[in-house]
């Protein structure tokens, strides 16, 4: 009986790993002369499959990776199932299916034929991502507590490859036990790098901090559109709170339609802002917004120059 592995799911990193593991296993068991074929199901029929899996003169073992199994034709499905139940034991078949309803018959047929099933479903929730981190660290030979894993996910975001790399790096640098302190030492400032954080530093007039936060924000995949929106929102708040005159945040909050903390914060910023500077800053942000939305060549540059201008206006 041949070795059949069925990878179900569309989490790219997990799929790639599962396929690689299956291929490695086949290579390890098959000696030096192994032919590996990597094909798309949509471009494959049962005759091609027969050709790929038939014994050849020199290469004793053969590995066939069939990707996109949801597009497999009826004949191909039958051929694969037959191969799985009574084929040449020198053949390894790896079938990749993205999950979902389309082409479900392949999955059921192969599962019924005794294929080894590897789940690679998309990791959607933050909890699952934390679990992924815990597993990755264990894999790399260390251990990490839940809080530290949560911090790491919050800092890095949703990219599994990056999370995986970070886990390997942390274990390699620090050693087996990883705590929240270690994560903070490596990734401080990253989690808070939202468009809002950039805008807050900018209206405080702190160019260096604003730009640093902006770079972190871009690195974590924050869209430049959010930066210009946050800048505009902060400048608007300053103007409206300034126009409302003196008063305690709690009494102003109602008429302005903002929560008191927002009013209090804006009152703090207000000291740095003169009306003319505010006008210049808003106009710069509007220009940048156009640049970010396609009028300019480089959205990141437009956002960056808006941040610099706004911070400069605050200091004026």
């Amino acid at each position: 009986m041949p070795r059949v592995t069925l990878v179900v799911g569309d989490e790219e990193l997990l799929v790639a790993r599962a396929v690689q593991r299956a291929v490695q296993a086949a290579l390890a068991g098959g000696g030096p002369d192994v032919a590996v074929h990597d094909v798309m199901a949509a471009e494959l029929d049962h005759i091609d499959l027969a050709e790929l899996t038939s014994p050849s003169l020199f290469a004793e073992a053969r590995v066939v990776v069939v990707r996109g199994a949801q597009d497999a034709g009826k004949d191909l499905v039958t051929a694969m199932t037959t191969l799985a139940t009574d084929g040449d034991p020198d053949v390894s078949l790896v079938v990749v299916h993205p999950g979902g309803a389309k082409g479900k018959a392949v999955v059921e047929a192969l599962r019924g034929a005794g294929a080894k099933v590897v789940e690679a479903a998309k990791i959607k929730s933050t909890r699952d991502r934390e679990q992924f981190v815990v597993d990755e660290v264990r894999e790399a030979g260390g251990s990490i507590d839940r809080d530290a894993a949560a911090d790491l996910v919050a800092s890095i975001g949703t990219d599994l490859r990056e999370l995986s790399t970070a886990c390997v790096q942390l274990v390699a640098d620090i050693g087996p036990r990883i705590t929240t302190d270690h994560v903070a030492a490596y990734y401080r400032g990253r989690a808070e790098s939202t468009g809002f954080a950039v805008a807050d530093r900018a209206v405080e007039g702190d160019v260096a901090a604003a730009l640093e936060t902006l770079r972190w924000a871009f690195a974590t995949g924050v869209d430049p559109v959010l930066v210009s929106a946050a800048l505009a929102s902060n400048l608007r708040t300053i103007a409206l709170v300034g126009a409302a005159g003196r008063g305690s945040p709690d009494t102003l909050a109602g008429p302005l339609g903002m929560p008191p903390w927002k009013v209090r914060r804006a009152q703090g910023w207000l000291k740095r802002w003169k009306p003319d500077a505010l006008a210049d800053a808003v106009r710069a942000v509007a220009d940048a917004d156009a640049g970010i939305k396609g009028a300019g060549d480089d959205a990141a540059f437009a956002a960056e120059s808006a941040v610099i201008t706004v911070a400069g206006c605050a200091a004026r």
Partner: protein
Amino acid sequence: MGVFDELIGQREVVAVLETAVLAAQSSIAGTGGAGMTHAWLFTGPPGSGRSVAARAFAAALQCADGGCGLCHECHTSMTGAHADVEIVAPAGLSYGVAETRDLVNRAALAPTRGRWQVTIVEDADRFTEQALNALLKSIEEPPPRGVFLLCAPSTEDLLPTVRSRCRHVTLRIPPYADVAAHLEGEGADGAVAAFAARAAQGHVGRARRLARDAEAQQRRREVLELPTQVATVGGCFMAAANLVDAAKEEAARIIESADSAETSALRESLGDIGGRGRAKPRGMSAALSDLERRQKSRATRTQRDALDRALTDLAAFYRDVLVLQLGSDVVLVHGDLERTVQRLANTSSPESTLRRIEAVLGCREAVDANVAPLLAVEAMALALHQG
């Protein structure tokens, strides 16, 4: 009384179209027919009557009397109910290639009433480039009785390949006097008609709304208060918020009823009669989300259009200021606000007025380029404040 009466202040254009209608009639009768063209391009500024001209021409082609304005053919052509007149009005932000291919197929049908198969495309400028290319083939080699009437603000809005295969009809901004006379003919008071024609700057539809609808007048007055509200920086932000909110409300009023009617019509046609325990029809959620996507696109456009009208009024206000500052001998657009205009003219320089006009026009461009509307208007208000 004929169908071309609806076309205000465009005598030259009417003459051209009437000649073509005569030629079309003789072509149907089988006696020659030189002078009729199968693809027309109507261009002219918004409100000059591009789509009215196209509809009237369609009616005149379908009518046995060349557009009497009274018969069934004329009436149904003008309202868009005629079986052989298809009116395409892209409601969303753009019109795609798949829809155009369908359109081309329908345009190739033989006319059911035996005269012409007319396809009117309002806002041909909203067609994507691929969509225009899909249309090109049938414009180049039209079906025997097919007529295409395209409308666009200017010839530059269409691909050169499409443009060169159409006969151009250029509409002008209708003279204020003609618009006013027409509104009076519709029953408006003389003074109101004159005011509306001027304030709408020759945009016939807008003039009609201003003459009839008290709410439209009120809204215009609110927009034109903005120049007095930008005296302080804080005021700029509030005025901007008001302007954008008003545009949102106006748009919401226009599309709200259409949205819910469309959604329930779609549910009904898919067979979703509701009730507990009934399975939802297959594919319904996909169809509904597709409809929602198109409605959202239309909402964005309606809101932008409302904002654009307000900005046009505002630009005309500063134009009036400049007129007074330079002592030009032309009529003010916003004559009813002459005192406000005069005050601003006395307290500012022509140079700053020009800069302000630039700011308003820049804002229109920014909104068009997808800048957040509130931010764009704020930047404009602050520019107006700084002068």
